């Protein structure tokens, strides 16, 4: 790590102080809805600003353009040669794919949604707050370049909400990439289609034709400025409220027209949607515990009606700075690499392009994270979960909780969190109102607060069921804590590194920082190849806040730094334990499964069983298993991915196409 030699003396780093981050103000868009007619609103005159280079075209013309494109034509010829069928047949197949996929955006449907959603939103939410300056920037962006909208994904609500906002503010309605699973809901699926959704199969790996139709469809809508294209970088809803590792397929597709010179630029607009209370709160927790995801069905949606009677607080939607693909690519991508092959011939993206798209994706997800509004409850969740893990049975006194929350408030602000803590209200009131909004998760008795783990139950239940019920509450609560993990992750990695390093030598701490960061790179959004920057950033924050002193060689903890470090270390604890359990389990069973291996699908339930057993018996080898959170399948999947990536576990394609796992016992530990 000779790199360390070039570190400037930390503290003199001319880094922008995260506390000084400039963010726009919010306006509540529901306020007007509460004061004027929803019907008139739904029927209002809608004349959005359009892309300046737009040649208007109908939905049917779009399809024709796709089917007649050189790109698709090339693939059709190829496929017809390979399969020995006529190109007319393949074209028919392509048309069918397109039919299944295509959106049919219709203003009348959007108006219907505008009306209905107004009613629903007003019942569910106290406010929907939008940064209007962000919308002005978006309008400008839409006028100048093709736009891609990239909202965070925490709820089914997200894309309806997006279209609702854009309609309200007279902005161009987007076309939205949606998973095929929605199509199962007959009526709703069609309605979504008419409000701009287009449907893509979840997996179509080897299907050349499908890929060609799909990518050409998206590109044509984007290039022509037909509508902003919206999709979720994370691919699916995050059940944990942590941002998911971005998926690159669609981002690659939408960047392609710029890279190949077909448009001057493309604006990528990250949008951060934060819910004070997530509609799917308990649903996600159950899913993470192995209750399979309910198939999206229309009737299921109606069952959600009971949701309507509850208070879900407020939503904050922040439209971030548009990111120009051109400036991202500047001095990173040599665009002339596309000069020598006709652009309609599909080519596998080069390493250079892949790593560029990957880095851009991480950057965009971080931009989403940074503008995610955090509510005081998020901080309370930190405290309550830590107390729970410490097994403080009688709960925390309200005063103490408030004190800790205020301490955490100040810390998170110093780290640049976008915290909405009403400073004009006494902290104790802020805390109690937060607790009351989330009354399903906490119990307050005699001035003491703890998580509502002991639920009322009907009839006898097994200890295993009881454990899972507890886990639901804990994972629900953790999903709020997780919203702020991105604020603390770098300092927390440094704190844990200091904790585990054998000495306080900077080099050694960097090494263990680097190891931890690498291990957790499936768990958190840590940009690939940015270890040094992350280390610097963490050092900068901890030095600035007086937690550490760093000189040429050593890292020293200050007198008042211990509290912060203890907190930061505990942030990573549940994850560290989760990864340890994973390794132990893998190690133990490697003997059993050594000859046959184990399929990936079998692995998660097996691990879950293993953990439940140990949580119930209360012991796990040498260390106590304190965190019920380790039951989360998300954690287990990430841990497995990390083990595979680090070479501790090997993935081998079996003869029947299963993926088998072989464990290199020697590598673990």
């Amino acid at each position, binding site marked *: 790590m000779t790199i360390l030699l070039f570190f400037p003396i930390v503290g003199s780093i001319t880094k922008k102080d995260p506390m000084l981050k400039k963010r726009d103000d919010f306006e509540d868009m529901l306020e007007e809805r509460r004061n004027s007619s929803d019907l008139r609103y739904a029927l209002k005159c809608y004349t959005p600003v359009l892309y300046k280079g737009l040649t208007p075209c109908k939905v049917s013309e779009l399809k024709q353009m796709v089917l007649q494109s050189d790109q698709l034509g090339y693939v059709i010829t190829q496929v017809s040669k390979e399969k020995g069928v006529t190109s007319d047949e393949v074209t028919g197949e392509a048309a069918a794919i397109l039919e299944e996929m295509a959106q049919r955006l219709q203003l009348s449907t959007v108006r219907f949604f505008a009306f209905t959603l107004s009613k629903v939103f007003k019942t569910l939410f106290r406010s929907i707050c939008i940064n209007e300056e962000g919308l002005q920037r978006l309008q400008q962006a839409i006028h100048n370049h093709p736009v891609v909208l990239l909202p965070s994904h925490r709820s089914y609500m997200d894309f309806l909400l997006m279209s609702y906002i854009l309609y309200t503010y007279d902005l161009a309605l987007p076309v939205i990439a949606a998973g095929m699973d929605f199509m199962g809901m007959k009526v709703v699926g069609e309605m979504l289609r008419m409000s701009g959704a287009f449907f893509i199969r979840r997996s179509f790996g080897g299907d050349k034709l499908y890929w060609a139709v799909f990518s050409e469809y998206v590109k044509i809508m984007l290039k022509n400025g037909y509508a902003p294209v919206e999709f979720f970088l994370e691919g699916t809803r995050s059940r944990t409220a942590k941002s998911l590792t971005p998926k690159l397929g669609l981002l690659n597709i939408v960047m392609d027209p710029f890279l190949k*010179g*077909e448009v*001057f*630029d493309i604006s990528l607009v990250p949008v951060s949607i934060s819910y004070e209370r997530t509609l799917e709160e308990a649903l996600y927790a159950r899913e993470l515990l192995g209750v399979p995801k309910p198939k999206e069905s229309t009737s299921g949606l109606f069952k959600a009606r009971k949701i309507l009677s509850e208070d879900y607080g407020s939503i904050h939607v922040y439209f971030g700075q548009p990111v120009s693909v051109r400036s991202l690519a500047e001095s990173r991508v*040599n*665009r*002339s690499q*596309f000069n020598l092959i006709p*652009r309609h011939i599909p080519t596998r993206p080069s390493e250079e392009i892949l790593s560029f798209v990957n880095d851009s994706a991480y950057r965009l997800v971080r931009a989403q994270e940074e503008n995610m509004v955090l509510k005081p409850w998020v901080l309370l969740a930190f405290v309550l979960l830590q107390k729970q893990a410490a097994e403080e049975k009688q709960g925390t006194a309200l005063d103490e909780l408030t004190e800790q929350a205020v301490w955490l408030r100040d810390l998170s602000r110093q780290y640049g969190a976008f915290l909405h803590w009403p400073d004009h209200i006494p902290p104790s009131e802020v805390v109690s109102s937060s607790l009351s909004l989330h009354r399903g998760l906490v119990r307050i008795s005699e001035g003491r607060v703890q998580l509502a783990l002991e639920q009322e139950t009907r009839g006898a239940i097994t200890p295993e069921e009881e454990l899972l019920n507890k886990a639901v509450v804990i994972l629900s609560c953790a999903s709020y804590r997780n919203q702020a993990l991105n604020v603390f992750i770098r300092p927390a990695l440094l704190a844990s590194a200091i904790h585990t390093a054998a000495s306080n030598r900077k080099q050694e701490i960097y090494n263990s920082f680097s190891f931890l960061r690498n291990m957790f790179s499936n768990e958190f959004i840590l940009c690939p190849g940015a270890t040094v920057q992350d280390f610097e950033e963490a050092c900068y924050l901890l030095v600035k806040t007086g937690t550490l002193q760093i000189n040429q060689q050593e890292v020293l903890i200050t007198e008042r730094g211990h509290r912060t470090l203890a907190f930061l270390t505990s942030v990573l604890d549940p994850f560290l334990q989760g990864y340890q359990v994973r390794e132990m389990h893998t190690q133990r069973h490697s003997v059993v499964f050594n000859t046959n291996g184990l399929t990936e699908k079998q692995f998660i339930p097996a691990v879950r069983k293993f953990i439940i057993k140990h949580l119930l018996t209360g012991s796990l080898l040498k260390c106590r298993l304190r965190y019920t959170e380790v039951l989360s399948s998300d954690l287990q999947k990430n841990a497995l991915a990390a083990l595979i990536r680090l070479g501790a576990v090997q993935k081998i394609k079996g003869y029947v196409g299963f993926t088998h796992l072989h464990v290199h016992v020697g590598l673990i530990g």
Partner: protein
Amino acid sequence: TFKSNPKKQEIMKWNGWGYSDSKFLYNKKGQAEFTGKRYRLSGMIIPGLREWMESTFSANLQHKTPAAPILNSSAVQPPTLNEAFLKELKSTGIPFSHDAEDRVFRSHGHCLHEIFALREGKIGRVPDLVVWPNCHNDVVKIVELACKHNVCLIPYGGGTSVSSALECPPEETRSIVSLDTSQMNRILWIDEKNLTAHVEAGIVGQDLERLLNESGYCTGHEPDSMEFSSLGGWVATRASGMKKNIYGNIEDLVVHIKMVTPRGVIEKSCQGPRMSTGPDVHHFIMGSEGTLGVVTEVTMKIRPMPEYQKYGSVVFPNFEMGVACLREVARQRCAPASIRLMDNEQFKFGHALKPQVSSIFTSFLDGLKKFYITKFKGFDPNRLCVATLLFEGDREKVLQHEKQVYDIAAKFGGLAAGEDNGQRGYMLTFVIAYLRDLGMDYYVIGESFETSMPWDRVLDICRNVKARIVRECKDKGVQFPPLSTCRVTQTYDAGACVYFYFAFNYRGLSDPVHVYEQVEHAAREEILANGGSLSHHHGVGKLRKEWMRESISSVGMGMLKSVKDYVDPNNIFGNRNLL
């Protein structure tokens, strides 16, 4: 000292384009006017120009930036003379001069920064001596002496370079001698059996055509600079002419070349029309940009003068349709002698340059045409664009050809827009260079640059480069929106040549030329990133040589380098172009 070719240098501007008597100016009434008698536009009032200039650039007649009127000889560095060389040169009797004006005149081409500096009276490194060889043998003597005395030679033809090719390398410490070929301007013979002419390389385009015309022939090679550029210069830069569709570019026209190099004279032993004798050595010469030697004599193809010429023009609803039409014309290989497509901004510009019409009838007719196109046909005046055409050949064939082209155009929504518009389009080619000087009198600087690309990239490059120019101007602090426009000027089987014109009002900028250069640099990067070439016919010079390696690969560079090392090991031809 010898005053050479009084005819040329004396009637030319020393710090601007073309003839001293021809220039745009605003008269006392504030109307634009083109002076002189040389061009069709000469002596005419151009009523629309002022408004166009004011609205396009936010220029203002009150804000003037006049040029230094005369050359201040004291600003010119005294010459570094190689006495031994000079002594032997004198004994040959070849005329020479170290007069400041002669040296400054040959120290530059017509890049913006070169002219801008002259207007401000700033003179950099200039040649120390000018020599005027009269024939091939004179050149042989000069080159021998230069080698013997280690003098740097820079060949000079018409001085119309736009690639910094004529700039003296500031780091050159040897005496620099400008080798002016203008006295070598004779047609040595015409061979009517083979339709070739053997010509001295210093001859200027318009003289060559005029002299050949007297015998009923032409070369048909008409680059936009043909009034001033020389045959040797065309060969050295791989020039392209407007009518290349009939006559070909310079590489198609040349049958034989004689060049004097430090190693001796290079030429082929026969005049066969095509040979398979290894790589064609002519291709080391063509495009060598004065780095290998001096081209002294060239045998060129000639053609009987065309019986009939007809101009034409077509209006398209938008640029995309226009390009699609040109592509189809190229596909059917039926391009007229010249076909060019201007974008909307250039169409408006061309419109602004219409001279005052003499009769009410003409102006009524113009109004009618405009009404027909915009109202009746529904063309958006802010999107439509125009193609100009020139047909040549025997009358019957021309008319047939014309019909074929108009039929194709109609398929792309094109409407025939008359001979006048076409003819004016080509006439403007020759006066447009004068217009830059007018702009420079009023805080407006600009230039054109060109590239070539495959057909499928034409629209993308035009759009992206124009947008890049606008964006870079904004980023670099230009206070007013720039003019950023383009036209397709040549069609080929596999692609096209595109010209970009770019100009802006530089009020409020402390170093406008630097800003201009940064923007042009960015525009070139954009061209290359989108699959355009480094140059179609202007050449590389010193302006674009930073991109040579990526353009032709390291091995390609090595090949050129090894030729240079063999032919000119002591870098006598030390203009440092290209490599």
